[in-house]
Every structure is written in structure tokens, then in C-alpha cells.
């Protein structure tokens, strides 16, 4: 193992390269990145970059000196175009590179809409340049239309409101953030945005973005109405960057398909947003577009790559956070396809709450608003040890689990049960 090539120079690719060096790999290490900028951090793009709390220089993941210390062959502004597994060669827009092991960390790109290109004022908040451009548009009294009430849209809307921008947020589903957090938590966040003056319109899909030839003027909805805008943010999800791997023999689906070791083929691994792997802790195939996962998976892949015989399954408890207004939302675990949500502390309409997620008979996730660190650590540990759900219901705070009782409500496929306030929710 003398030559490792990592494709993708964002959080996941950088973490892999850095881990390889830390673990003692002293061979040739090439890091290929499509963007011209050195590796930078993306979560602040929809948060502190827009507020001005952080500058472009402050979101660089490593200093030039730190990158030098890694002794990388760093190839920025270079796109991978294909791979030949048999001869172990990566082809790029600037020539071929041979490898002994290959790491695919090419991430995702935002979904687009007709009319999104060719006019200024349309933003996806995926790249630093784009976020800096959006920041210029966030002036008091300007009209911002946010297409899609997911995390990018919701965070951007919250910052824009704090800067005095008029915000209209259009969401095709009945409830914002429902796919990520479930309906009940999503409803509470929708209400929060409305309280802060966002004109949130649900069940409104956007057909196209309108412009006057140079600048965006608004969006046209599926029903034909026009919503005028000075700037538009498109936050309607993303697509894994795997097209360049088509025909390579690697298995592609929604992402690069990997096993529980994050391995796609012998000596080929996937890291970060692009990788779909089986997480043995939850027993499901998942693809996680969260910052923490990219770094954790990079570290796990570096270990497995250097010692394939002693490979360890990658079984993290996924984590993400979101900042919206005065709320810091933090989540652990796997929230999708849950069977039930129980509010175990506070209530969803207050800034501070804890909601637990059940799948089958096991605690699989927790979402907390403005929760203290000790509370969250306890919940994370409970998810990691696959705590039976009955313990959530009968926790040490003497939970009064009124199953099907006065607190029960049914919305969509999942049940919401309000459980009495837990005194010490982090401790099982």
C-alpha cells in the first residue's frame, strides 16, 4: 500500500487524509478537490457566514501550514472523471493518477430548478462563494424567497429575518422538516418561523425560477402563481456526486454503495455525504449528510484501509445540529422511519425540550432544543446501547407513560405521546 488517492477535498476527504497520516501512513497521498479553494467547513455557510460572525478565512478547515505538514499531493480545481478498477487508475480533468487504495468522498450537489442558472440572485448555499454572494443580498427590506423548508432553507430564513429581510418560505410538503424530524417537531418549527415573521406557505411546489435576463425576479409555483423576489435560496435537497463512477463496476444507488466497513470494492472506500453504507447499530442502509459523520467516517475508513484484515464496522450514532433563532437543535441517532415520538421534557413549542424517537421496541433517536450537555450525553449513550423503549417510558424520573391516554395524538403515520416531564432525562 504505497499510493492512496482521496477524491473530494471537503470535510470527509480531509479527515481521511489527515487520519491516514496520523495512523502512520507514509506513502504517496493525493487529495483531489473539484473546488479551487482549500478545504473549508460548510455548516457555517447557512449560519455564521450569513450573519457575518465568521469570515471566509475563519471557515478554512486547516491552515496552509497544517496542510503542508500532511505532505499531500493536493490537487485543487481538479475533477475526477472516471476510475478503472482493474488497472487501479483514476482519471481526472487533469490527467490520470494511479492508486493502490481509493477513497471516494465526492459529496453531494444541490438539486436545482429550471431557470436557476443564467441570472444572479439565485443561491444554493453549498459553496463558500455562493454563501458570500447571498450575504450581500440579505439587506433590510429585500425580499427573499426560500424554496424548500429543510435545514438549509430554515437556517437561511432565520438569519435573513434577523437581518430585517422579508422572507417567504415555500415548502411542497404539508409540514416543514417533517422528513428529517417527524411531523410534530416539524410543526413546532413551522410555528417558530411564522412567529418570527416568515411567510411560510406549505404544500406549495415551485416550478421554475424567473428572471429578467440578468437578475432573478421571483419564482413560479406549480399552480402558476408568481412570488416576487430580490433573491432566491433553493434548498430542495441534494444529489450524491456518483455519475463519474458510472460504468466503473462499483455499485451505485442513492450514493456509492458500501458494506459495513464503508468499503465499496477491494481497496475502494466511501466517505461522507456520498457514501451509503449499512450501519450495524441500526441495521439499516443509510447515507448521512451531516458534518460530524464525514469526519468520523474518514477516520474509520483510514483505519480499515490500512488494515483491511482487522476492519471494524462503522457503527456511529449520527449527530447533527441546527441553529434557528434562539434555538439550538441537536439530534442523535437515526430519526427517519420512526414509529413514535415521545416528548420527554419540556414541550415542543418552548425553546427547551427533549423528544425521543422509537423504532420497533428500541430507542433510536433523540432531538433536543437548547438542552444541556449532560442531558444529551445520557441520551446518546442510551441510543448507542440500544436502550429498550420501555425504559424511556419508565425512566428514573418515574415517567407516567400514558400510552394511548390523554396526551396521545395521531398525525400521519407516527404517534405522538406527551410523557410527563422527566426530572433527570439523561440518566438511565
Amino acid at each position, binding site marked *: 500500500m504505497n499510493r492512496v488517492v482521496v477524491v473530494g477535498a471537503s470535510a470527509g476527504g480531509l*479527515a481521511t487524509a*489527515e*487520519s491516514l497520516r*496520523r495512523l502512520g501512513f507514509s506513502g504517496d497521498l493525493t487529495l483531489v478537490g473539484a473546488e479551487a479553494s482549500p478545504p473549508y*467547513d460548510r*455548516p457555517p455557510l447557512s449560519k455564521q457566514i450569513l450573519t457575518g*460572525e*465568521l469570515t471566509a478565512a*475563519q*471557515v478554512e*478547515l*486547516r491552515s496552509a501550514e497544517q496542510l503542508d505538514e500532511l505532505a499531500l499531493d493536493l490537487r485543487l480545481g481538479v475533477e475526477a472523471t472516471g476510475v478503472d478498477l482493474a488497472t487501479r487508475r483514476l482519471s481526472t480533468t487533469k490527467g490520470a493518477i494511479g492508486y493502490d487504495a481509493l477513497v471516494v468522498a465526492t459529496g453531494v450537489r444541490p438539486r436545482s430548478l429550471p431557470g436557476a442558472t443564467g441570472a444572479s440572485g439565485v443561491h444554493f448555499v453549498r459553496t463558500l462563494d455562493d454563501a458570500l454572494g447571498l450575504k450581500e443580498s440579505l439587506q433590510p427590506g429585500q425580499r427573499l424567497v426560500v424554496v424548500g423548508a429543510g435545514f438549509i432553507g430554515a437556517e437561511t430564513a432565520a438569519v435573513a429575518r434577523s437581518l430585517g429581510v422579508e422572507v417567504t418560505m415555500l415548502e411542497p410538503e404539508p409540514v416543514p422538516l417533517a422528513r428529517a424530524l417527524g411531523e410534530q417537531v416539524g410543526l413546532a418549527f413551522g410555528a417558530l418561523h411564522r412567529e418570527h415573521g416568515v411567510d411560510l406557505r406549505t404544500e406549495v411546489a415551485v416550478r421554475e425560477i424567473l428572471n429578467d435576463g440578468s437578475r432573478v425576479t421571483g419564482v413560479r409555483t406549480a399552480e402558476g402563481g408568481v412570488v416576487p423576489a430580490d433573491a432566491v435560496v433553493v434548498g430542495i435537497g441534494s444529489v450524491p456526486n456518483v455519475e463519474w463512477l458510472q460504468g466503473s463496476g462499483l455499485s451505485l444507488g442513492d450514493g456509492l454503495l458500501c458494506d459495513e466497513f464503508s468499503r465499496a470494492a477491494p481497496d475502494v472506500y466511501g466517505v461522507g455525504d456520498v457514501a451509503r453504507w449499512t450501519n450495524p447499530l441500526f441495521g439499516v442502509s443509510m447515507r448521512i449528510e*451531516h*458534518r*460530524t459523520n464525514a*469526519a*468520523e467516517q*474518514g*477516520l474509520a475508513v483510514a483505519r480499515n484501509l490500512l488494515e483491511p484484515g482487522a476492519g471494524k464496522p462503522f457503527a456511529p450514532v449520527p*449527530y447533527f*445540529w441546527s*441553529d434557528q433563532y434562539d434555538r*439550538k437543535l*441537536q439530534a442523535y441517532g437515526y430519526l427517519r422511519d420512526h414509529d413514535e415520538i415521545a416528548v420527554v421534557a419540556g414541550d415542543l413549542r418552548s425553546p427547551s425540550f427533549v423528544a425521543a424517537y422509537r423504532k420497533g421496541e428500541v430507542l433510536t433517536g433523540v432531538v433536543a432544543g437548547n*438542552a*444541556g*450537555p*449532560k442531558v*444529551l*450525553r445520557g441520551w*446518546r449513550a442510551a441510543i448507542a446501547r440500544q436502550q429498550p423503549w420501555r425504559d424511556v417510558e419508565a425512566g428514573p424520573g418515574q415517567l407516567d407513560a400514558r400510552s394511548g391516554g390523554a396526551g396521545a395524538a395521531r398525525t400521519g403515520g407516527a404517534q405522538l405521546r406527551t410523557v410527563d416531564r422527566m426530572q433527570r432525562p439523561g440518566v438511565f
Partner: protein
Amino acid sequence: MQVEVDVPKCVASGQCVLIAPDVFDQRDEDGIVVLLDDSPPVEQYAAVRESALVCPAAAITVSER
């Protein structure tokens, strides 16, 4: 080893405390990082490096000299 934390960048994820609880803690009120030991002993090096690597805010800087 010298450890630095960039407090304004911290997002209170607590990953560092999970990995290196002897070196990092969090403020009770908001979960922001508290550096317990800016020059930890050698047996902590691996955990501190891992904390810096997985910190979702890239708020931990480790200098090895």
C-alpha cells in the same frame, strides 16, 4: 502537545468530551467547550487528535511542538 480551542466557533456538539473527557468539558448552561488541560500528558494525545479531527466546528487546534 499544545491544545487550543476557538470558543466562538464551538457548536456545543460535545464530541470532544465523549472522546477525551480528561481534556475537554462543556459549560453546563450552553454546552460550549471548556478546555481542562491545554498541555495534556502523552497518554491523551491520541484522544485529543481524534477530538480535533471529528470536531464538527473545526474548533480544536493541536500543535505538536
